């Protein structure tokens, strides 16, 4: 045991010295996994881009269970990685206990904005603003005046998405009906394609002809079912238009890739504090490319771009679900 301790201590100090010289960044993916085609994959893309441009290397881990969060954080911090980038709101609690123990390490928390920690860069996205824009597009594309929203795990963040979406849709068509469902209340909801498909079929049966999926890995099943059934869908986080060309109306972009890229680029000189990035900073937006060009009319684009500018200028204010834990346009 003593020998083991000595060995471990030696390895740790070795790693620390090595870290001090190199200080590679580290990236912790959340439970959806690196290739969820959505939230985590965006982070992966950002990190890859940084690697290709700078030739730098980084370490990463895909969490397999909630219990690994703190363990992974400590291991990376202990090994001298800097900054340590974490994905998702669920890292808030582990961060609040780990970050004070490593004052010289900088942490990045994506989707966390409420921690009191001097060495954490907390990045929140104005998802409601981006969702507002795709909600407008959904309402304009809908012929049945019924649109759907399928969320992943039922958490305030996902309601925040749905709330912006509903406000956008109502801004275009005050009489539009919005059907909102959540896949579940546990982290498994991010990876439950069967439930996702079944909810999609249900919403279509209730008349929805555009469905917005904010459900991590489950979202792909929603998009595919929508494509199979011949209705439009809206992707989330990453640009998902290419998954089913001509069937995905647009994707609500959340530029997690840019946030990760910037953090890695800044390296140890990273600025800490709370950052909220929205439409003005291009932190959120909607995707337009060759896969959905035929679906988005000029009129649609003009309306949405005008609304985007109005939100930036403060002429339209999109209510945030967080403000009083309720949504003016949608009840969940």
């Amino acid at each position, binding site marked *: 045991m003593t020998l083991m301790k000595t060995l471990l201590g030696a390895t740790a100090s070795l790693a620390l010295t090595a870290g001090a010289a190199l200080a590679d960044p580290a990236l912790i993916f959340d439970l959806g996994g690196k290739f*969820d085609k959505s939230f985590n994959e965006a982070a992966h893309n950002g990190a890859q881009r940084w690697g290709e441009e700078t030739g730098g290397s980084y370490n990463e881990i895909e969490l397999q269970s909630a219990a690994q969060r703190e363990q992974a954080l400590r291991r990376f911090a202990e090994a001298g990685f800097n900054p340590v980038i974490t994905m998702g709101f669920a890292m808030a609690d582990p961060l609040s206990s780990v970050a004070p123990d490593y004052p010289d390490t900088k942490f990045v928390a994506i989707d966390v904005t409420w921690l009191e920690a001097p060495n954490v860069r907390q990045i929140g996205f104005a998802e409601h603003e981006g969702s507002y824009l795709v909600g407008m597009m959904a309402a304009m594309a809908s012929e049945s005046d019924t649109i759907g929203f399928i969320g992943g795990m039922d958490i305030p963040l996902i309601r925040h998405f749905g709330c912006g979406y509903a406000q956008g849709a109502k801004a275009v068509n005050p009489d539009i009906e919005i059907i909102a*469902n*959540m896949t579940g209340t546990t982290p498994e909801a991010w990876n*439950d394609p*069967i439930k996702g498909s*079944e909810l999609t079929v*249900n919403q279509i*049966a209730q008349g929805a002809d555009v469905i917005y999926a904010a459900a991590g*890995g489950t979202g792909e099943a929603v998009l595919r079912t929508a494509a199979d059934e011949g209705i439009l869908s809206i992707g989330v986080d990453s640009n998902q238009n290419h998954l089913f060309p001509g069937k995905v109306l647009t994707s609500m972009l959340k530029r997690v890739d840019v946030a990760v890229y910037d953090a890695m680029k800044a390296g140890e000189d990273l600025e800490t504090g709370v950052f909220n990035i929205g439409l003005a900073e291009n932190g959120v937006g909607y995707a337009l490319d060759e896969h959905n060009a035929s679906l988005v009319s000029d009129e649609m684009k003009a309306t949405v771009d005008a609304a985007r500018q109005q939100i930036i200028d403060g002429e339209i204010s999109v209510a945030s679900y967080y403000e009083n834990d309720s949504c003016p346009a949608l009840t969940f």
Partner: protein
Amino acid sequence: MDFTTALQILDSTVRLSTPLLLACLAGLFSERSGIFDIGLEGKMLMAAFISAAFAFTTGSVWLGMLAAIVASMALSALHGLASITFRGNQLISGVAINFLAAGLTVLIAQNWFGLGGRTPSLETGARFESLTLPLADSLAGVPVLGPIYAELISGHTLPVYFAFACVPATWWVLYRTRFGLRLRAVGENPAAVDTAGVSVIGMRYAAVAICGLLCGIAGAYLATALQAGFIKDMTAGRGYIALAALIFAKWRPWYALVSCLLFGFLQAVALRYQNIELGPITLPGQFMDALPYILTVVILAGFVGRAIPPRAGGEPYVKER
């Protein structure tokens, strides 16, 4: 709730019940022969992955199905080897199979496709398409019965019809054939069967093999009919719900149909209505998800009838003491 909504919920019930029903009948064969099988979940998961992987590589859903059956039967053989030949603890062997499948599927998927433990999406031809039964379109106009035929009975994938056909087939095999009689006897009193000159080991292996076959089809249904591809842990506890349904059905085929339809119905309702308002109280959707397990506990506790498992269940057969 109007007629169309009811029809849609029942339609959804049929789709969601199918994997439960196949797995439940699989467990029925195994447990009726005296081999408890906690590993239904693992076998389905492995079959789901193998079917998606082979269907994607070969482009043929049938080859995927075949490979899934082979993989599931291989796990069954492992369970048989551990619990029949080596007389190990059946529950532990089953749990081991679940863990093995949960880990292996993701590992192989990552190594094979490099997509983080999932398979690529399957294209048409590599997955089961829904079948339109004859006359479904022309009869759809008939009041009441027309929509029931066109929406509820027609328009499912092939494994769905197979699963429902399995119920009378299972009943017939168990209660009307010599094989079935021996199978049931092996689960109740293996010594008597042995005295009659029938191989207990052979009967139990046959039962476990049928269990593997049905689990294979259930898994392939999940990945190539209900979905178009494999995602890690996509069975999401359906193997356990099937076990609960088996107990609820008191190990009988027709009751299994009823209990699987009931559990499928509960899932369908929970998906359609996230909260159910019953006058003054509101039931959260999670309650519906938990209801199958609650009902099983109620049945096991003996409040509603009694569920008596096969007498020799869980015990390895030792010829001489």
